[in-house]
């Protein structure tokens, strides 16, 4: 019994104080460290992909797909409906175009004008785009339609941010 190592009063106090002090230091440092590395931990908004459609639905003809995203816009947080024209090219590439006219922001339709059955048409000022979204010279738009980032996972098409061209 007596050959058990005895803990002196001094040692005992040392251990306790180190332990308590350690806890306090950790308590103070942890939030600081958390703040320092916080930006790294934040999920990036740019990587927000939303599932939009099943890949089987996508044909060579552009089709309109709609989905809902949460958007925080200064004061308001709201659900915004997004739309894209999606089709498959001859090389089996999926293309998703924004329907927002680059002229003044109307919504363009595929083949809605009988004279141009293979172009996107803007009803506001007769702006036109070819199937790949490039604006037809001589019509009001000055830039091609933006394309959505896309990826395919488990047979579903996911769309992300739109990129200007």
């Amino acid at each position, binding site marked *: 019994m007596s050959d058990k190592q005895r803990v002196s009063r001094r040692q005992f106090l040392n251990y306790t104080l180190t332990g308590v002090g350690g806890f306090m230091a950790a308590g103070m440092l942890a939030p600081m460290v958390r703040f320092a590395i916080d930006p790294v931990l934040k999920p990036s908004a740019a990587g927000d992909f939303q599932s939009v459609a099943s890949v089987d639905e996508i044909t060579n003809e552009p089709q309109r797909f709609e989905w809902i995203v949460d958007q925080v816009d200064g004061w308001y947080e709201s659900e915004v409906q997004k739309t894209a024209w999606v089709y498959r090219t001859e090389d089996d590439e999926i293309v998703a175009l924004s329907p927002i006219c680059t002229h*003044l922001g109307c*919504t363009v339709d595929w083949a809605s004008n009988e004279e141009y059955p293979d172009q996107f048409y803007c*009803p*506001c000022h007769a702006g036109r785009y070819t199937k790949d979204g490039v604006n037809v010279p001589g019509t009001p738009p000055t830039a091609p339609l933006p394309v959505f980032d896309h990826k395919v996972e488990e047979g579903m098409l996911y769309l992300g941010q739109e990129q200007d061209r």
Partner: protein
Amino acid sequence: MQWTKEDIELYAAEKKYVDTLIIPLIPFNPEADHTLVKEAFQRELNQLTTQLLEKEYRGRVLLAPDYNYITGQYEHETQRINEWIEKFKKQPFEHVFLFTFDTKWKRWEQNLNGNLLWIPSLNERNLQSSETRSYVKEQIHQISELIRAYWD
């Protein structure tokens, strides 16, 4: 385009492309308990519909500030609305549409200097529900076709 700083800046710069005006007509009567809910709902539905319409054609359509009025005095309101229209037409606007769920305007239509777009309202229900959504979508589809017919 909407009546906000950002949109109006764009409007001022690109005026020549914007020739269509939509004025929402929104009735209310704070005295009458039995119509309060209905009118509040119609106001929400009106704003939702006109904003979605504006979104569809934002490059050519300006959404005017809401025209709010106390229900009842249609003769007096007709005059005031015509004053609004007269001032807006100086910009100029070629096509002016008045969008409302208030049935009573139908009788005064010929005295208004704009095209009345009256559509029947829904009974009060959840604006987010899928029936309301599909109703609004369908209405917008038809109204936008109507507006396009004026453009051609």
